[in-house]
């Protein structure tokens, strides 16, 4: 049975179709969900794609996090549902407080669209379960504000608890500790600046994004089974 993935779209989002196409090519049943809706329509995983929600005005992700759908996303995350934020989606998740830290302007003060080499740091996250720690992968980056930052205490904590998921090999945007992706404490919410959906086929340069999405689908499957089990047990009791 294929899992259902909800791809959230805000006014100004622009990578939702690309994410959808990637998910579909892996056999997932994926659907775009409009930010003004409240229901996740039974999704087993949620992806917040890249783009410029609300024009990136004020701060990236600052306005989007108040969209009606975000309440449902927060509840879903609290319940252990897998949530992935890509690029602008990562910014939304930090603004919403679902992930630690914040993303600031690239240290070079310029928008950067290029390929980056990344190191998989934690291979047990919902994003990286099909990789090995230490793997090097190639993914495109495309952002003006991907400079990850957090205070020293938070940094020590997330390093300690294995919440750093991906690191840049060279640090194109000045992120603290070369961080490219982080997870929450529970490990079910992950945000990353690079774009796995742009690396699905060698025709476009890299296919390293496939295993990342496949990992998310695995987590979705797992979550969907546990959801059904607990629903069953609730029903029986």
């Amino acid at each position, binding site marked *: 049975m294929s899992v259902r993935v909800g791809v959230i779209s805000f006014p100004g989002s622009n990578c939702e179709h690309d994410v959808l196409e990637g998910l579909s090519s892996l056999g997932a049943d994926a659907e775009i969900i409009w930010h003004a809706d409240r229901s996740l329509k039974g999704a087993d995983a949620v992806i917040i794609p890249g783009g410029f929600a609300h024009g990136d005005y*004020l*701060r990236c992700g*600052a*306005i989007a996090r*108040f969209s009606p759908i975000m309440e449902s996303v927060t509840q879903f995350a609290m319940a252990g549902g897998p949530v992935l934020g890509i690029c602008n989606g990562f910014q939304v998740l*930090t*603004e919403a407080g679902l992930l630690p*830290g*914040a993303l*600031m*302007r*690239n*240290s*070079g*003060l310029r928008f950067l669209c290029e390929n980056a080499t990344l190191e998989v740091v934690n291979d047990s996250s919902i994003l990286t379960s099909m990789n090995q720690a230490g793997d090097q992968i190639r993914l495109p980056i495309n952002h003006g504000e991907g400079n990850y*930052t*957090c*205070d020293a205490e938070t940094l020590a904590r997330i390093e300690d608890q294995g919440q750093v998921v991906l690191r840049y090999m060279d640090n194109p945007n*000045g992120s603290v500790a070369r961080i490219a992706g982080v997870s929450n404490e529970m490990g079910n919410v992950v945000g990353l600046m690079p774009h796995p959906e742009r690396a699905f086929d060698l025709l476009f340069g890299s296919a390293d994004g496939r295993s990342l999405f496949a990992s998310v689908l695995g987590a979705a499957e797992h979550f969907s089974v546990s959801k059904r089990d607990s629903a069953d047990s609730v029903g029986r009791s």
Partner: protein
Amino acid sequence: MNFAVTIDVRGVEGIADPEGRTIERALGSLGFSGASTVRVGKVITFDLEADDRSSAESTVREMCDRLLANPVIERYEITVSTSS
């Protein structure tokens, strides 16, 4: 009553300000010496209808806490004055 609101949003102490650094360098190479610790912030202004100053101030504070500033990286300062 109508109030004129000004909110100064700046980076918290200790966080790098690459834009400020770049401006500092550019000033230097344009031949301006003597400028140091350049920092760049944001200023948001608007008119606000409110019953009185203290309710205006508390509304603005709430706007900042919820939306206008991100406490992880920013701090803010509010000025509320009666509009002329």
